[in-house]
């Protein structure tokens, strides 16, 4: 019973962070039709920026997380301007775009490796300590991660549902051409989406590095899980992504608790394979329209 509750708690924590990462992937996919495989590298950059501020400069965690958000958001904007914009609308966008992001991911990983070395950095928890309820351990860091992620997801959802800019983003992801004809500045929307998506990934990196591990290749597995979440929820659907994030987080936590950590990725892939065979568009996705 206690194991069960502990597993559920772990699932909620990881689900929240996967939600943060996957929402970014989904937004970018929805509006630009781009699968951003540099997401994992941006996560790592966020982690290292947080580390530099907390350990190197000794500032408190709020500033460090803020710095991670700003730096990775700017990185996303830069990536968009330097790599994505020159390729937008060119023939071969479908192939070239995601391969370019793979390359950007390699590049960023290499930069991090050069600056910080290949070793594992010990990222301190933002808030040390824990409290024990019954026999279940709640780390303060986990509560913080979960709280921040949930608040951000709610804010993001509100932003997308209620504000003009959010409406523009949703319009662009539903009907790009129509949105452009209605006078929505599509280029600005793309820039915003890339920036927000990268910022969320960076924050996820800064928050999760103390729970997981921080090294130059640490972003690959979280990115894979975010991809699984994205596909499971339905590409382009924010609501589906958030639901899927918690389901995947819980599945993973149960697998880790009752089968062992090595099984988490294989089981997730099995789950996603089964889901895709039964429901190719994911939980909330709309089936792809065939272009005639």
């Amino acid at each position, binding site marked *: 019973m206690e194991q069960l509750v502990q597993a559920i708690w772990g699932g909620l924590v990881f689900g929240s962070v996967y939600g943060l990462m996957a929402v970014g992937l989904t937004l970018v*996919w929805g509006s630009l039709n781009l*699968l951003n495989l540099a997401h994992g590298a941006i996560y790592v950059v966020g982690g290292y920026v947080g580390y530099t501020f907390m350990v190197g400069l000794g500032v408190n965690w709020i500033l460090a997380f803020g710095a991670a958000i700003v730096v990775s958001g700017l990185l996303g904007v830069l990536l968009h301007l330097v*790599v994505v914009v*020159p*390729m937008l609308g*060119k*023939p*071969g966008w*479908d*192939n*070239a775009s*995601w*391969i*370019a992001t*793979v*390359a*950007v*991911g*390699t*590049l*960023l*990983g*290499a*930069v991090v*490796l*050069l600056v910080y070395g*290949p070793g594992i950095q010990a990222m301190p928890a933002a808030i040390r300590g824990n409290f024990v309820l019954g026999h279940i351990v709640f780390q303060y860091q986990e509560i913080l991660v979960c709280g921040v992620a949930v608040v951000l997801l709610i804010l993001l959802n509100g932003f997308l549902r209620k504000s003009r800019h959010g409406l523009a983003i949703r319009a662009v992801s539903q009907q790009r051409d129509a949105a452009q004809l209605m006078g929505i500045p599509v280029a600005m929307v793309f820039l915003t989406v890339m920036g927000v998506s990268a910022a969320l990934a960076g924050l996820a990196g800064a928050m999760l590095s103390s729970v997981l591990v921080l090294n130059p290749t640490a972003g*690959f597995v979280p990115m*894979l899980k975010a*991809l*699984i979440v994205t*596909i499971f929820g339905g*590409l382009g659907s924010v609501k589906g992504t958030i639901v899927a994030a918690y389901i995947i987080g819980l599945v993973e936590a149960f697998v880790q608790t009752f089968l062992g950590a*090595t099984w988490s*990725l*294989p089981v997730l*892939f*099995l789950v*996603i*394979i089964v889901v*895709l*065979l039964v429901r*190719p568009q994911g939980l909330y996705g709309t089936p*792809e329209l*065939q*272009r*005639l």
Partner: protein
Amino acid sequence: MSVSKQIARPVRVAPGAGPWRRFNGGPAILGLVLAAGVPWLLMATGQRYVVTLLVTVLVYGMVAQSWNLVLGVSGIFSLGQLVFYATGGYVSSLVTIHTGLSPFLAIWLGGLAAALVGLVVGVPILRLRGIYIALLTLGFVMLLQNYLGTGPSFFGGFYGLQPPGFSSGGAGSVLVICYIGLALFAITMFAVWRIMHSPVGVAFLALRDSEVYAISRGIDPFRFKLLLFAYSAFFAGLAGAFMAHYQQSVTPSTLDFTLLTNLIMMIVIGGWGTFWGPIVGAAILVFLDSYVLRNLAAGWHELVLGALLVVVVVVAPAGVVPTVARWVNRLGARVLPEFDEEEELV
């Protein structure tokens, strides 16, 4: 009467109406003879290391070429080519270790096993579209890597298997292996060229460029894609089996993400969907890797590779081969076949 048989009927068309081509043996055989001289010359001048590099180029060229058939020519976003590569290596190793069959025969079994796996894996995958295929095939790669490492003990765990080599060793053995590799390479390239420039290959192109139109003209997408998957898997398996016996070891790290991205880089840098692209790409990447990047510290290596790929994709999304061909032709003499941005098949 199977679909491919019906298609392979001799068709009489006006010259130029059919986009497929007859194979012209002359230049190919001449090129092969010239190519065969290269390793011998290198060995004669004591460049043994370059010969080993050539073998690597041949193997990766085979894998990249077979993958390009799926990725570039047919536009199926499969990241699962390494599954077939590893299958070939493991099956061939297991057969030679347990039955004592000669590696020369076992590699073909490796290819066949990979083709079978291609058929089995293809059934669920090819019903999906685009990006879902990418994730699912990546999932298969990860699952297989995990299974080989932690599964039944006869796969040898993370240390893998140590199959016997082609020859008993000795000074000239690299040369022998290089010639075996060259023969397999030639067979693979011929097979890929043949299917690319046949009515079947045109069907693949049609499915890539306009699926709805292709279907309405009577092409069954699922059967064609499955045929392609198995066909391409066979050669990837063959390359994997050859590599296993050449290195006398095959491990789960064959399925590493690094190799996967490297092979994709070869295809993209060389030229996506072109025949010469993957070959040129493999040569560029292997030689760059061992001459330029080897002397760089860790980190710089990936930095240069990543930067190179970003530049190529942004500046020349079509790849090196089509871009260079266009430059050469622009110089005046139209010596090289012209590549079209949209239809990069020559």
